[in-house]
């Protein structure tokens, strides 16, 4: 049971994303905006398990978060799928690794991508009414989210990456010797 739990630790930790998303702790927000929590989990997951897994879990996360948020007209799925695929292409031991702060930069870009895609959906939907210009000041939501996500990512992503690597090692049945 313990071994199974350790093997699936990375997947089990997915449960906490919607909980934190709903919890919405105001004390770490700016102008009521929170960091984009799913990216903190998706970045290490995709880096450890690759682009395809990143795409699939990005889709799953999007489905879960869309079900928790209102307004069936808008979705977070495209942004999370794109981020999942992109994050999967980043090598853990790649030559560009500049330390933990790199995670902050990557998550900031990811958050910007997701926020912009969501914002464009709102603009496209309100375009026929002619009111879409009213929504432009809401861009500050994206900027606040980008800043907060980039700020917290180095801390959270590096810890989760360690956890996921540990979990992956436990889940491999045959450990081939490295030559």
């Amino acid at each position: 049971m313990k071994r199974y739990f350790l093997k699936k630790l990375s997947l089990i930790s997915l449960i906490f994303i919607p909980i934190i998303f709903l919890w919405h702790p105001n004390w770490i927000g700016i102008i009521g905006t929170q960091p984009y929590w799913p990216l903190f989990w998706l970045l290490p997951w995709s880096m450890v398990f690759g682009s395809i897994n990143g795409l699939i879990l990005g889709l799953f996360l999007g489905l879960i978060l869309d079900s928790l948020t209102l307004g069936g007209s808008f979705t977070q799925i495209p942004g999370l799928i794109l981020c999942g695929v992109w994050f999967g292409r980043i090598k853990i031991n790649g030559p560009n690794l500049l330390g933990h702060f790199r995670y902050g930069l990557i998550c900031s870009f990811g958050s910007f991508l997701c926020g912009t895609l969501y914002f464009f959906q709102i603009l496209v939907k309100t375009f026929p009414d002619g009111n879409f210009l009213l929504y432009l000041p809401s861009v500050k939501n994206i900027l606040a989210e980008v800043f907060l996500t980039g700020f917290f990512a180095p801390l959270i992503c590096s810890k989760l990456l360690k956890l996921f690597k540990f979990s992956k090692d436990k889940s491999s049945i045959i450990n081939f010797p490295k030559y």
Partner: protein
Amino acid sequence: MLDIRRISSNRWWHNKKNWILFGIFLFLFFVRISKGTFYKDLYYFLSKPFWPGQFQKEVIVDSVDQESLIKLNLLKKDNKRLRELLSLKQSSENEAISAAVISRKTGSWWRQLILNKGSKDGVQIGSTVIGPGGLLGRIDNTSLLTSSVILLTSPTSKVGVWLDRVQINGLLVGLGDDNPRLIIYSKDSDVQVGDFVSSSPASTLLPPNVPIGVVISLDEPIQGQKTAQISLLAKPQAIDWVQILQVKS
């Protein structure tokens, strides 16, 4: 002849009573000259414990409250009768459900509350949610034990509202920030800062005359529309308990 001499002790100034009377006279004379100042000041100290204090104030305030309540009930009955005649929507306060806020997203694009009452408790989709201050939003979906409220500030929220001073309808649109915009489809309307916004008396979605907010600034007209920024009276970021009003036709 007997020389009758008056005994000196019988003279009037030897009589103590006379002096007392004289003293009283002097005192009254002083009172008369001072126009009762001394009396009034003495009365001030003597009557101080019996002044109309907090208790009497409460009695008067209670009376005024009772009077207002009676008037309000009469007006409600009148209003209900008239709305029935016009076949408009109405809300029954007897069917209000109190619910606690268990999740609150009041920032970014997703602006919603999750309440601890769901379909099990009779909460229906479309019900109006009010809190201290006025309208918060509407129930968007329900689960067995919870219900989600779409806040007026959410980008997906659009509600018809009423400006009482200028007697005009408008559309309240959430933009994803704390101040939703009021769109008025009439360039000539005389909307001013400080105008009070409430739910429309002719609304088919919301109960009538629920307070919503106040106009805090006016924007430049765009494409023949006037827009104004609204400050909501009910603050979802600070409210822990809400009332769900079941709308019945």
